[in-house]
């Protein structure tokens, strides 16, 4: 299925958000959102992906 991950369209076979993170090789220090809503780490495996989902995976970054 096609989803949008961090603004880029891609094809994935991951069934849920936790699986997507594993598939894409993200490090442990990330926070996630689906369709603009925060998804806590504990709920990623219970968050199924659907065609066209917008997923954000954020990490610590420089800031002022």
């Amino acid at each position, binding site marked *: 299925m096609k989803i949008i991950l*961090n*603004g880029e369209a891609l094809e994935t076979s991951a069934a849920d958000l936790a699986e997507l993170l594993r598939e894409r090789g*993200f*490090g*442990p*220090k*990330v*926070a*996630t*959102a689906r369709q*603009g*809503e*925060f998804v*806590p*780490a504990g709920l990623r495996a219970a968050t199924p992906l659907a065609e066209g989902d917008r997923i*954000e*995976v*954020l*990490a*610590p*970054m*420089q*800031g*002022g």
Partner: protein
Amino acid sequence: MALFYGVEVESPLMLGTARYPSPAVLAEAFRASGAGIATVSLRREQGGGQDFWALVQSLGVRILPNTAGCHSLREAVTTAHMARELFDTPWIKLEVIGEADSLQPDVFALVEAARILVEEGFEVFPYCTEDLVVCGRLLDVGCRVLMPWGAPIGSGLGLNNPYGLRSLRAHFPEVPLVVDAGIGLPSHAARAMEMGYDAVLLNSAVALAGDPVGMARAMALAAEAGRAAFRADPMEPRDMASPSTPVLGKAFLS
């Protein structure tokens, strides 16, 4: 010593982590500044996030995540939720930007976002203007720290409205106050501290200096000097001269 939500912080400097020429210079600048609090952000993971986190952890300072770049209430609140999980802290530097050129806060959305986040248990550090009424509303909804701007973010213009910042200090003598944004020179930092502010938060002034480590040291000295001066109760200025050397006992020599 400043007290932010029950946490005593010795240094009057809060330092940002952005725009340094290299991670090594960032770390060295932090050591030179003695800053006790580092601001950080959340951005899309593009490969650098995990290393950056390791670097920040090595600084041994308290983390203050921001909601920089958020232009709406919803964005800011969601970013705060993500920051709380990612950084494992209830602290949030709440920014809701209202105008793109000046990066002036949208104070209406800011107050509403602060209300929501305080109810959810966050300890909010609102990036605000020096407006007394807005600051009063932020306190009403449960903020226990205020962070008025000195000047637009990244401008280095200093304290654009010293009168407003002084009034704020006088109106809220018990509230920890931090000048956030606009500091360009050590004299700006000293001036804020001389007014009785509890801390200054700066980033570009250090990171964009030709020698960031040297500027970090200069900022630390200035902020300390300003704080010491405030505690020493400065004299009142006056318009006319007043001789400092005694007049009595002066020889008659003409």
